[in-house]
């Protein structure tokens, strides 16, 4: 593990039982992700990319091996420790945005801040900054149902970055968007990576989307092949 390494997976395995079947997703997986990286993970359905993303996001635990984040092991953390770790370190962006339908944009963005000790005033400022960054300052009071898919995904991005996490995990962030809107969202992710130093890991089926990443890992049957891309 080097100083500029943010994430290290060492000999990680993951398997689970489905019915009577024992499914092995990974076996002896090793990978390293540097700070400020923008990594795209591609692969066919069932290749394990979502499982990998879940492990990297601390919502799933490996069956074996070690997972190191920023110099600390995370695979040994309890469920509540992992929840705290996610709140402090990871921002999540989902394919279907997953905004709370009963909250307006600003309230949705505020959600992760409920897990911090920021004052009301500081929270307000953080929300304004995040919404401004995604270009939705004028939509703060709008409900998700009043916004387009692209706008909702921007709110989701604002929610992901509002608590200033080191890592952004994106699960098919443009899978539900048209090409033009998808490009806008990907440009925004690129901006967050380039200007704000966010480390981004993105799972995608879309080769066009992968082009926005600095590198792409192709996952197949629990193993990957790395290929450098020009951002």
């Amino acid at each position, binding site marked *: 593990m080097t100083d500029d390494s943010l994430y290290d997976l060492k000999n990680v395995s993951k398997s689970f039982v489905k019915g009577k079947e024992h499914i092995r997703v990974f076996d002896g997986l090793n990978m390293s992700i540097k700070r400020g990286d923008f990594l795209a993970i591609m692969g066919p359905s069932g290749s394990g990319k979502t499982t990998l993303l*879940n492990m990297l*996001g601390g*919502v*799933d635990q490996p069956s074996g091996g070690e997972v190191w984040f920023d110099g600390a092991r995370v695979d040994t953390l309890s*469920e*509540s420790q992992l*929840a*705290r*770790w*996610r*709140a*402090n370190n990871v921002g*999540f962006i*989902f394919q*279907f945005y*997953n905004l*709370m*339908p*009963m*909250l307006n944009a600003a*309230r949705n963005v*505020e*959600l*992760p801040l*409920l*897990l911090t000790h920021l004052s009301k005033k500081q929270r307000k400022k953080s929300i304004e900054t995040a919404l401004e960054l995604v270009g939705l300052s004028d939509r703060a009071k709008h409900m998700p149902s009043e916004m387009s898919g692209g706008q909702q995904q921007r709110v989701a991005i604002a*929610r992901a970055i509002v608590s200033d996490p080191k890592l952004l995990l994106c699960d098919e962030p443009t899978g539900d968007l048209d090409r033009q809107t998808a490009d806008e969202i990907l440009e925004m992710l690129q901006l967050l990576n380039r200007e704000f130093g966010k480390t981004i890991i993105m799972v995608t089926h879309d080769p066009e989307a992968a082009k926005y990443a600095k590198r792409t890992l192709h996952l197949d049957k629990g193993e990957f092949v790395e290929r450098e891309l020009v951002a």
Partner: protein
Amino acid sequence: MNDLYLVYKNLTRKPLRFFLTLFSIFIAFMIYGTLTAFETARNSSVELSADDRLMTLNKINFTQPLPISYVRKVEGIKGIKAVVHMNWFGGYYQDPSNQVQTFAVDQTKLFDVYGEDMLLPDDQFQAWLKNRQGLIVGRAIAKKNGWKLGDRIPLNSNIFTQKNGSTAWEFDIEGIYTGSSPQIDTNGVYFHYDYFNKTKSFGGDYIGWMGIRTEDPALNERIIKAIDDMFVNSPWETETMPEKVFIKGFLEQLGNISLMINSVVSAAFFIILVIVGFSMALAIQERTNEIGVMKTLGFQSLRIFKMVLGESMLLAFLGGILGLLVANVIADFLAQAPQFPVPDIILKWSIIFNALGLMALLGLVTGIVPAVNALRLNIITALSKR
């Protein structure tokens, strides 16, 4: 924004469902509050009746009279402090539907027997004694009919007539009495037996019953036997009993109200339990994905458990408190209705505390299963459900 805000927003996200479940809880607690207040008031008339008071009635039933000569004989029994004789007048004011509990009494003895319950300023009492047509009225009935001290009012009887054929008697309101506690009935009015006895066209020198105060409740048993033995084998045999027993027996003639009330309240709560429980379970099931998202963002499972339980609690307390408020209004309304067969119905603190306990229980029972499901919900499973 805080957790309570999230709880509130989740609860009200489907306004129709929120309203209907809230309404069902509201109805249950309105029924509970009203019926329990009624039952408590009904029982309180038994509890408030003094241990040292007896009632002597005609043995056939309380509608049959007794000769007035019995009063003097009873007064002579050792251990009796005071005896007041009373007649039911069957009164109404202006309209037969506006009934007034009217009693012709021995005005000199009424307060010797019932003075602990009925409070009347001495000057008003003296004025009442002096005026043969004087009437003292309870605060509740005075308020209802807009009576004031000094008013001259007619009261009609639906039983008696005057010798001149009229059913109306004229009275001067000389006093307005209050109850020594809020649950003492102040819907009664009292006037001089002499005025009644001299003017009515039939039934002279007969009384309805006797109210008796003893020197010590321990003497009651002996006194009861002494009175009833005194008149055994006479044309007007008596039955004497503690006031509590008489009131309880009178109330029981209305039927087993307690059983009816308990049945209605239990049925209402069972139905509400099913409705709210089902509604909460459905609401949480629909939000499986959102709960998964919150957990992904870093919300602890226990915190989500509390929020879900908080929803059912908030729902139960909102509906319950609204129900109790309306029950209080209904109780006030019933308390103002003089024809209602129990004294002032009030939502006592004991009823309110019991209701709050029931609300907490309802919230807990209806929320615990969805809350535990939310607590145990696996993030990956939850996120896979849209």
